[in-house]
């Protein structure tokens, strides 16, 4: 390390030495046994099963987000077009399925692809009306969508943060029952964002109000 390494280095050694001494001085008389893991790793529903999908819809709608179910990938474009309404500009990550946006072509809405030709800036995204992405996994029990920034159809974190409206396309096979199932499918080395409903606050008299700094509107399209 650079210049302050001496001073900081000694802090490191001292903190670690204090903690070693504390660890030993306060050690319990009987060493703790192995961590019990008898909680449920799987829920009542298999990944992608009709029960898991129904539960996801119920739980996402509980957060006052919308869910639209379509049977086939080819049906996504029509729903996306309806959800985007009269949005004049839409951002998408580079790996998003272009077929999702074919329904809005006729209205002359501008589609901005991140990285094509250049990465979108915060200022660019502050001017777009909506963003359309995929999701890595969805958790039925908690109504949570997980976005993996390393996945081409989900994109860099700011894409789904700055625009005020997020349309998220979720595939049935990516819907799991529980939080443990979801974490097992994710790579912790990628930046991940767990999204459960639109942004919200309960800071005023613990009254939940949707829509603070993140997207105020969240629409989910569930495929399959």
């Amino acid at each position, binding site marked *: 390390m650079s210049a302050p390494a001496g001073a900081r280095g000694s802090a490191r050694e001292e903190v670690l030495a204090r903690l070693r001494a504390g660890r030993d001085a306060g050690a319990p008389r009987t060493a703790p046994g192995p961590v019990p893991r008898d909680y449920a790793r799987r829920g009542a529903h298999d990944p992608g099963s009709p029960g898991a999908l129904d539960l996801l819809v119920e739980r996402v709608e*509980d957060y006052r987000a919308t869910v639209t179910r379509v049977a086939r990938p080819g049906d996504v474009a029509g729903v996306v077009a309806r959800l985007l309404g009269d949005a004049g500009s839409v951002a998408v990550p580079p790996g998003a399925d272009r077929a999702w946006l074919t329904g809005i072509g006729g209205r002359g809405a501008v589609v901005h692809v991140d990285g094509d030709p250049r990465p979108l800036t915060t200022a660019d995204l502050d001017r777009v009306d909506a963003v359309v992405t995929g999701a890595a996994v969805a958790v039925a029990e908690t109504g949570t969508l997980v976005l993996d920034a390393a996945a081409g159809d989900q994109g860099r974190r700011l894409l789904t943060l700055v625009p005020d409206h997020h349309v998220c396309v979720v595939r049935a096979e990516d819907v799991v029952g529980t939080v443990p199932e979801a974490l097992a499918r994710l790579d912790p080395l990628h930046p991940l964002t767990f999204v459960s409903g639109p942004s919200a606050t309960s800071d005023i008299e613990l009254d939940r109000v949707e829509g603070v700094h993140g997207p105020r509107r969240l629409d989910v399209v569930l495929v399959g």
Partner: protein
Amino acid sequence: MSTTDLPTPTVRPAHAPAGTGHLRGTRPFPAEARDALANTQLRRNLGKATGVIRAKRAAVVDEVPDWEALRRSGSAIKADVMARLPELLEQLEAAVTARGGVVHWARDAAEANAIVLDLVRAAGGDEVVKVKSMATQETGLNEALEAGGVAAWETDLAELIVQLGDDRPSHILVPAIHRNRSEIREIFLREMPDVDPDLTDEPRRLAMAARTHLRRKFLGAKVAVSGANFAVADTGTLSVVESEGNGRMCLTLPETLITLMGVEKVVPTWSDLEVFLQLLPRSSTGERMNPYTSTWTGVTPGDGPQAFHLVLMDNGRSGVLADPDGREALHCIRCSACLNVCPVYERAGGHAYGSVYPGPIGAVLSPLLTGITGEDDVNASLPYASSLCGACFDACPVRIDIPNLLVQQRAASVESHHRPTGQDVAMRAARVAMTSAGRFRAAEKGLGLGRVLGGRSGRITALPWPASRWTASRDVPVPPAETARDWFARTRPGRER
């Protein structure tokens, strides 16, 4: 020159030094609480808010069939962390460094603040956006930055209300819980330069005013400061759990991110998060999941901050670790459930505890972190800020035995006195009674210990889940408001002022 031959000085676990940060108030709890009890508005605001959140929590905890298994697992993971804390921190440091982050170590609050200030200056910033963080409240980082010429903007709505109102946080999760909507409206009208003068006190309108106020700050910020809910040792992954999206803004948009965390926030593995990400949201905001949880590992080229600094802070934690019982207080995941069910907190409010950590956990964690220096130490009064009703244990998602810690800290409080006084004698007598079955009844009435020692342990062995769910989730019968006050009046005559 090599330094390896020098004798190694003995390094001892340390308490948080006085002088920097907010682990101590200025007046003892009874004096603060008495004033708070006279504030009808405060009590009404608190009573309403804690009532709402207790009901929400009970509903979402009830629907989890394996809640008790999750609690036991969470508790055991934390006990394992304490047993391996130095090793896990070294592992975390190596993983964060390998992914492009820079790790710093701070012995105490002053050193943590100095490191952050240096980093902000090195990044060329004269202002930072902040995600709500207990660690930076603990160190008084905002004041330290301000003294160094750096403006710190709190971006969590409740923290913003506190900052604009020139106020102090009164709750771990909802720092402005003592404020009602019309008070918040007045603060915004007074303090936000460009606010709509027709602002109403409708929560939605107030939240939108905060959005507008902060948006420009987020989009232009160069440096962000955050805390961390969890840090995964084996991957180097940090995690922030939040609601509003202000956390995502801070973690994503600025060029430099500085995260300050207490050393106890480390967990061994990524899959440990599957336990805590279930326990925390249901216990804190009473939601199945909070709106946003962000995880990141070091620096990701092209995405988010390109400079990441992690400051690992002791500030008294090594001292707590050295206490065989007290170290359990380091298991706390700051959900605030114990505050919301505490009859003393509900009446006295968070400010009465002086420290940034209020409520039942604060009443033990604050004196454990600072140590109790003597009879005039205001933190010596905190362990008495409880009727020992046991509701905090039932609510705690990681099963911290707060009532036991309260009793232990009462003993520490007595022992810290240099000269025996009437108060000491009373407490020593109580301690003897607590540890002796035959005399227990005598103390039971005055201390309200019956439910704690008899009722709870009876339930644990005799009523395993699901019967225990009833006790874990029901609203707590509220002991008379006067219990704690009476206790003080009786045991500390003339000491309240």
